[in-house]
C-alpha cells in the first residue's frame, strides 16, 4: 500500500504543477490588473491549438513557440478590450471575459471543427521510467521540468528586473507609478500578455495528455480558479502551494475514495476558506477593499 501512496503522490505532483502553471497566469492578472479573467481557459485552449498547428506544419520544436503566440494574442486583447475596464465596475470585467471565453471557443470550433484532434508527445519523449514503485512517463518529467523552469524564471523576472519591480509596484499603487513618469498602460499590456503566455504554455504542455478540442478550456479553468482561491487571489507562492495541494489531494482521493475524486478539490477549498477566508497566502489589498 505504501508503494501505491508514493506512486500516486508523485503522479499528483505532476498534475499539480500543470494546475499551477494554469493558475499562476490567472493569479497575476488578477493581482496586477484587478480583472478576474474568465477567458483564461480559452487562452489555454489557444495555446494547445497553436502547438498543434505549428507541430503539424513545422515540427515539434516550432510548437515551442505556441506560448509566445498565445501571449501576443493576449496583448492584442488587452489593448483592444481589457484596458477599457480598468477602474470600472468589476462586474464589467467578468462579463467581458466570459463573453471572450465563448467567442474564442466558437472561433476554434469554426476553424478546426468541434471534434477532438489527435496530438501525441514527440517520439523522443515517449516511454516511461520506473524507480521502484514509482512510474513516471518521460513526457510528464519534461512537463515537470519545463513548469519548474518557467516558474523560477518568472519569479526571477518579478524579483530582479526593473520591469518586474514596476509590475509589483503598479499592482499596489498604479496611480503613484504613473505619477513617477512610468508608462503604465504598456506595463499592464505586458502583464496580461505574460499571464496568457503562461496559459498558452500550459495548453501546449497539456495537449499531448488531454483531448485537444475547442471545449478543453472547461477542464482547465475550474481547477485554476480553485487553486487561485486556495492560494489567495494574487499570490504567486500561494498559487504554487495550492496547485500542488490540489494535485496530491486529487490523486490520493482517486486511490482511496474514487467516487469523491471530482469533488475532492472543492472540499479542500471549502475547508481552507473556513479557516482562512482570504486563502492560504491571501493578503488585504488596499485597492480591492
Amino acid at each position, binding site marked *: 500500500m505504501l508503494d*501505491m501512496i508514493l*506512486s*500516486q503522490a508523485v*503522479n*499528483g505532483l*505532476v*498534475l499539480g504543477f*500543470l494546475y499551477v502553471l494554469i493558475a499562476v497566469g490567472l493569479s497575476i492578472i488578477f493581482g496586477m490588473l484587478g480583472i478576474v479573467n474568465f477567458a483564461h481557459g480559452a487562452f489555454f485552449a489557444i495555446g494547445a491549438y497553436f502547438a498543434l498547428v505549428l507541430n503539424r506544419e513545422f515540427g515539434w520544436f516550432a510548437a515551442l513557440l505556441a506560448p509566445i503566440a498565445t501571449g501576443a494574442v493576449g496583448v492584442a486583447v488587452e489593448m483592444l478590450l481589457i484596458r477599457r475596464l480598468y477602474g470600472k465596475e468589476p462586474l464589467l470585467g467578468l462579463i467581458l471575459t466570459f463573453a471572450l471565453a465563448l467567442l474564442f*471557443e466558437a472561433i476554434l*470550433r469554426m476553424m478546426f*471543427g*468541434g*471534434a*477532438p*484532434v*489527435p*496530438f*501525441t*508527445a514527440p517520439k523522443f519523449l515517449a*516511454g*516511461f521510467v520506473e524507480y521502484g514503485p514509482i*512510474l513516471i*512517463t518521460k*513526457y*510528464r518529467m519534461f512537463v515537470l521540468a519545463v513548469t519548474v523552469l518557467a516558474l523560477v524564471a518568472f519569479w526571477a523576472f518579478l524579483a530582479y528586473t526593473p520591469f518586474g519591480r514596476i509590475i509589483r509596484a503598479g499592482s499596489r499603487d498604479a496611480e503613484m507609478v504613473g505619477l513617477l513618469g512610468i508608462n503604465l498602460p504598456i506595463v499592464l499590456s505586458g502583464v496580461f500578455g505574460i499571464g496568457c503566455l503562461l496559459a498558452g504554455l500550459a495548453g501546449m504542455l*497539456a495537449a*499531448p*495528455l*488531454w*483531448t*485537444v*478540442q*475547442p*471545449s*478543453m478550456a*472547461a*477542464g*482547465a479553468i475550474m*481547477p485554476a480558479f480553485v487553486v487561485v482561491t486556495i492560494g489567495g487571489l494574487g499570490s504567486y507562492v500561494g498559487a504554487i502551494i495550492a496547485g500542488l495541494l490540489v494535485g496530491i489531494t*486529487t*490523486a490520493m482521493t*482517486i*486511490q482511496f475514495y*474514487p*467516487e469523491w*475524486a*471530482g*469533488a475532492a478539490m472543492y472540499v479542500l477549498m471549502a475547508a481552507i476558506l473556513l479557516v482562512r477566508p482570504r486563502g492560504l497566502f491571501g493578503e488585504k489589498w488596499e485597492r480591492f477593499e
Partner: protein
Amino acid sequence: MNDHSINRSKFGTIGRRGLLLGAGALAASRLPMPYIGNAAAAEPIKIGMIWAKTGSIVDQAEYLAQGSMLALEQRNNTLLGRPAEIVWLDEPNPQGAQQNAERLVGEHKVVGIVGGALSSFALAISAVAKKAKVPFIAANAAAGALTGSSCNKYTFRLQPPVDVHTNVLAPYCASIGKKWYVLTAAYAFGQDIKKSFTDYITANGGQVVGADEVPVGTPDYSSFILKIRAAKPDVVIGGIAASDLTTFLKQWNELGMRGKIPFAEIAVGNTDLWGVGPEAADGLFTLTWYYQNPNNPPEEKAMAAAYAKKYNRPAADKTWMGWMGMKALLDSIEAAKSTDAAAIVGALEKWNMKRGAITAGYRDFDHQMTNSLLVAGIKPKITDKWDYFDVRAELPADEAGIEKAFGSKANSACKMDSL
C-alpha cells in the same frame, strides 16, 4: 447564439440583386397557376433538434446535428408539401436540455424533437415530451431507463440500450480472461455499464477485481491507470464517453498500457477514436454503424456519399444516428399525413427499414429500436486518418437473435402509458 434556424440563416447571404431576381422568378412561376395559398401553406413545419453546442459531448453532437439536417435536406426541406425547417437548441446540461425542450414546444411550436446526446439529457427531454405530448426520438442515449422504467408513449430510442451492447461484447471479453476491471463514468450510462458487465462476468464464473466511477470531464486519468496497473486485470471494461474516452486512451498509451492489458468498451463514437490518433488508438468496441461496412444498405451508402460530398469527410456513426433518428420522424410525419402528435406516434410505431437480414424498427411495447451492432477492433496499422476499425462481426445476425439480445415484452421494465 442559442437558436439556429436552418432556412433563415441562408437568407443572410442573398444580396439585393439575388433577392430581386429570386422574387421575380417566384412571381413568374406563380403566374400560370390559380392562387390557392392559405395561412397553413405559408407556415413552415418546425422540427425541434436538441444537440449539444457546448460541453463535453459537443464533438459527437456536431455529427449528430449534421446527420439530422441532412435527412431534411434530402427531402428538399419540405414535409407534407409544405416548407419545413429545423430549430436547433443547445443541451448544456440536463436542466438546460429540459428548458430548451420546453422552449421548442411552447415558443417554436415544433411537431417533434430529435436529440439527447447524453442519457441524462435524453431523460430530461423525455419528461418534457411526455408532459407536452410531443414525439421525441432519443437518437444517441443508451441508458436502459429511457425505454425501461422511464418509458413513455411519446419517447422513441434509436441506440440499443447498454444491456444489448453488453450481450454482444461481453462474450468476446470473457474469451480473453475472467478478471475484469471496470472503469465507468459517474452517471446513468456508466452505472448501467458497470452493473451490466459485473452481472455478466459474475454469472459466468469470473470476477471484477476493481471498479471506479469517474467524474465527467476528468482531465487526468493517470491515477486511475496506476490503480488498474496494480490490480493486474485480464481486461479493462470502459464506460466513459466522448472526449473523456479520448483523454483516457491517450493517457493509457502514454503510461505504456496499450497492448499490455486489453481494453473494451461499448457504444463508442468514431470521433472519440479519431481524436486519440493512430499511435494511441486501442481497444475492442461495439459500434452502431461504420461507413466502411460493406453491408450498409444502399440508402445509407447514399447518405454517406452525400455527407462526404458536403462536409469533405466521411460520415461518422453519429452522423448516421442523427440522420436515422430524423429520417424516422420525417417518414412518420409523411406516413401520418398529419402533424398531429398521436398520429405521428402511431406512424413511428409502424415505421421500419430493411437493413440486410434484419428489419430495424421501434417496438410498440417500449419504443426501443431493434437493430444489429458491429463488433470492431482497431486496425493493426492505420493508414487512413478516418479508417480506424476492423469490423469483426455484425450481431445479432437475424430476427431470432434480435429478440434474444433485446429481450421480450415479458422481460421489459417498461409500463407503457397511453396517448
